[in-house]
């Protein structure tokens, strides 16, 4: 039975590179996918591109490709990545430059374009934002980017036209696997059942180490060997849609039913209706079976017709956050931190700092679960760290809040240490749905035959 082997090369923008190289060298794989684009990353990249039209792609693109491309001489693995971020074409040109430097002038590098819908986003100003329910027009003046999640078809097409490396912008994460699988098996994008299985494959690969024991270890409950040498997964996709996920021998991590189940449901809302640009995947009858030796067989994913809409991530400027932290230790530390909190609140009031939202946390007590922390068993603390943050429309207010926390060194309760303040210009993301037919993807080539 025909099968193809796809490795994961990255699961987020700043991911480690060694496991990717190991998968290329020892993995006997046909493809490697680098998933490097979070919701907000693309908005920040658009900001960079605006300041310089030659950038706006993943910051580690050169670092990664300098290491990956020389390996392709002995290991002809095809590379699929969304490291193009806001500027897939510039990314493809940079990769071609690196290929030439390594004497691989014949490499064909495809940039998938068309996800950038900023120029038409105001046509959808009456559409509700998925996060808040409010209309898109309410943020109209602050929009800096709009990118539609596109599917695997553009990637399949680029591969059919002979691409060795495909660079996309905002493609849906699992589509990075759907693209090559659909191409290799020559299946139709109307074959929803098969597409659903490709989404399961992509979903298992897209977070890289999260299926091989990363984001999993819990000593005594879920032990993971050699987590410092965590492998990235390699997946074999069979013609009948069966999937075997594995990791290379002599690597850290663990791959078993538990790790696969956690990743299968990760970021999924309704397992029966996992919406992607290619298909609505159905994981509700999926099964996992350990084959031993860090190999797991995954079967039973299905799919239904896609929705006809694409999700668009709209980046917009959303004011400022000012924040600061300071620690207290030893006897009565909580009382001193509480006094510091009281002082800060009063200071912000006296200085008439104009904010929309104020939040204070006691790190060590309630910073993760807020008031719900009271539901947990109390433990004695040796130290506690106060954190104060405000959201505001005014840069000066954010700066003031940060500075006031730092001032607690000299002006606050006894023994405050490790004070730190910072302010950030927030780029938020809102999501809207737009008709699929409004988005046209295209392919542009860097190097090779045009």
């Amino acid at each position, binding site marked *: 039975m025909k099968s193809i082997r796809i490795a994961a090369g990255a699961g987020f923008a700043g991911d480690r590179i060694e496991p990717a190289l190991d998968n290329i060298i020892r993995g006997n794989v046909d493809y490697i996918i680098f998933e490097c684009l979070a*919701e*907000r990353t693309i908005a920040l990249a658009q900001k960079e591109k605006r300041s310089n039209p030659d950038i706006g792609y993943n910051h580690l693109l050169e670092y990664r490709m300098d290491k990956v491309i020389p390996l392709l001489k002995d290991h002809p693995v095809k590379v699929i990545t969304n490291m193009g971020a806001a500027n897939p074409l510039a990314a493809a040109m940079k990769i071609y430059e690196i290929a030439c430097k390594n004497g691989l002038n014949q490499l064909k590098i495809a940039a998938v374009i068309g996800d950038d819908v900023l120029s038409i986003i105001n046509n959808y100003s009456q559409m509700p934002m*998925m*996060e*808040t329910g409010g209309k898109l027009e309410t943020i109209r003046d602050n929009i800096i980017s709009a990118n539609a999640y596109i599917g695997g078809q553009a990637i399949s097409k680029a591969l059919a036209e002979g691409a060795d490396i495909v660079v996309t912008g905002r493609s849906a994460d699992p589509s990075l696997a759907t693209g090559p699988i659909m191409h290799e098996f020559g299946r139709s994008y109307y074959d929803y059942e098969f597409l659903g299985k490709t989404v399961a494959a992509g979903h298992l690969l897209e977070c890289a180490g999260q299926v091989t024991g990363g*984001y*999993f270890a*819990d000593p005594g*409950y*879920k032990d993971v060997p050699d987590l410092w040498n965590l492998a990235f997964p390699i997946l074999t996709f069979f013609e009948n849609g069966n999937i075997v996920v594995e990791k290379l021998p002599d690597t850290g991590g663990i791959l078993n039913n*538990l790790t696969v*189940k*956690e*990743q*299968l*449901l*990760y*970021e*999924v*809302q*309704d*397992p*029966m209706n996992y919406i992607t640009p290619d298909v609505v995947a159905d*994981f*509700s*009858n*999926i*099964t*996992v079976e350990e084959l031993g030796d860090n190999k797991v067989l995954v079967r*039973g994913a299905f799919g239904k017709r896609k929705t006809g809409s694409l999700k668009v991530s709209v980046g917009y400027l*959303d004011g400022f*956050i000012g*924040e600061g932290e300071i620690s207290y230790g030893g006897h009565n530390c909580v009382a001193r931190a509480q006094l510091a909190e009281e002082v800060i609140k009063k200071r912000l009031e006296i200085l008439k700092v104009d904010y929309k*939202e*104020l*939040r204070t*946390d006691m*790190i060590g007590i309630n*910073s*993760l*679960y*807020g*008031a*719900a922390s*009271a*539901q*947990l068993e109390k433990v004695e603390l040796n130290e506690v760290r106060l*954190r104060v*943050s*405000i*959201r505001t429309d005014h840069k000066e207010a954010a700066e003031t809040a940060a500075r006031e926390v730092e001032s607690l060194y000299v002006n606050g309760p006894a023994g405050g240490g490790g004070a730190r303040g910072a302010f950030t210009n*927030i*780029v*938020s*993301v809102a*999501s809207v749905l737009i008709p699929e037919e409004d988005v046209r993807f295209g392919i542009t080539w860097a190097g090779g035959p045009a």
Partner: protein
Amino acid sequence: MKLYQIAHSRTGDKGNISTISVIAYIQEDYPRLCEQLTEDKVLAWFTKVGATKVKRYEVPSLGALNFVLENTLGGGVTRSLALDKHGKSLSGLMLEMDLR
């Protein structure tokens, strides 16, 4: 007993929504999760972190429940003032739930 004794969990995020899986270590414990981890109970446990609505999905073939919690992320990942903007640590709170 505590939920962490028989199940493991992973949290994901989308906008202002948290998705939290609860997976039985052994299949025999799955019916117990279904019976006891009702939407109402989970909502009550997460109300103080902001949850306003909980939807539960069952995946018997994985011995898993998948919970979707609305408004747990302080207005959304990108604008929240929380230290853990993604709510990644919420699985730890889930596993502290009491079971009979």
